[in-house]
């Protein structure tokens, strides 16, 4: 999935990660990617989003509002903070495990810890609540996959920020939790994420007074203008 991402798409992912860190979220969701897309300087996504009232600062304010409305998880759910409350330093535990057994052993143990053998090789979140040692859950996975699909459909090998934005918009058309198994929805519920109803990205876009379809046409127009 990621091997097709262009350099600026990877930069978007880094920015999205920063945003998830700011909100103390244990997952990387499409809503974080949207903030990354608004912040990134190269590629046409920043101007498109900013001209429609979806600049980084506006998005952050709306995300904070969604957290306050309990649509998105609050900062108290951060697993590292919860464990620190119990007197456990997660970073120290991870470092100790990695130095004595190596990072590969830790990855193997994360797969092993899945309760059922036949779930071990399935993608993340399918086996229920994620372990705090596993890092952030990749909730934006479907959006990333759709971004790759959009890039192929437009006949490009590499997926850039525009394709990522198209993927995020396509993902947001469906209600939250689409394409997830019952077990994965339980994982979402544990993270404090909505698993039904309008997706957070749709809420963000519609709160700015625009629509998913309108944004999509704007992005497609900019893609066709540059090629």
């Amino acid at each position, binding site marked *: 999935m990621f091997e097709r991402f262009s350099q600026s798409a990877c930069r978007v992912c880094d920015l999205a990660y920063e945003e998830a860190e700011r909100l103390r979220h244990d997952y990387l969701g499409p809503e974080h990617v949207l903030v990354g897309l608004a912040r990134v300087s190269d590629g046409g996504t920043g101007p498109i989003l900013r001209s429609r009232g979806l600049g980084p600062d506006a998005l952050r304010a709306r995300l904070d509002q969604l957290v306050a409305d309990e649509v998105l998880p609050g900062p108290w759910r951060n697993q590292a903070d919860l464990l620190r*409350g119990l007197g*456990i330093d997660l970073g120290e535990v991870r470092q100790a*495990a990695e130095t004595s*057994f190596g990072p590969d052993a*830790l990855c193997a*143990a*994360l797969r092993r810890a899945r309760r059922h053998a*036949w779930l*071990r090789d399935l993608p993340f979140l399918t086996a229920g609540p994620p*372990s705090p040692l596993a890092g952030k859950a990749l909730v934006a996975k479907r959006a990333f996959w759709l971004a790759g699909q959009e890039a192929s459909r437009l006949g490009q090998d590499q997926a850039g920020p525009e394709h990522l934005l198209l993927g995020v918009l396509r993902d947001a058309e469906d209600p939250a939790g689409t394409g997830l198994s019952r077990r994965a929805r339980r994982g979402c519920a544990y993270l404090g994420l909505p698993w039904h109803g309008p997706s957070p990205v749709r809420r963000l876009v519609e709160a700015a007074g625009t629509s998913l379809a309108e944004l999509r046409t704007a992005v497609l127009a900019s893609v066709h203008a540059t090629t």
Partner: protein
Amino acid sequence: MTALAAATRSQDPEVGLTAVAALRGLVDVLEALQVENARAKGWTWKAIAERLAVSKQAVHQKYAGGRLPRIRR
């Protein structure tokens, strides 16, 4: 952070239960890590089970086996 530590010890079940689930996720992985290491060092399932205070069948069922589900006949 002290406020959060206090919140964890507080009587709010939502915070307390979420913290316990996080702790369980941590313990599961550490257990798998140690079992894997013990097996690599040639420990028997019986010896591992004794240290974990569970039956040898339990630890074998949880950690032995390959990737595919066992076919039940």
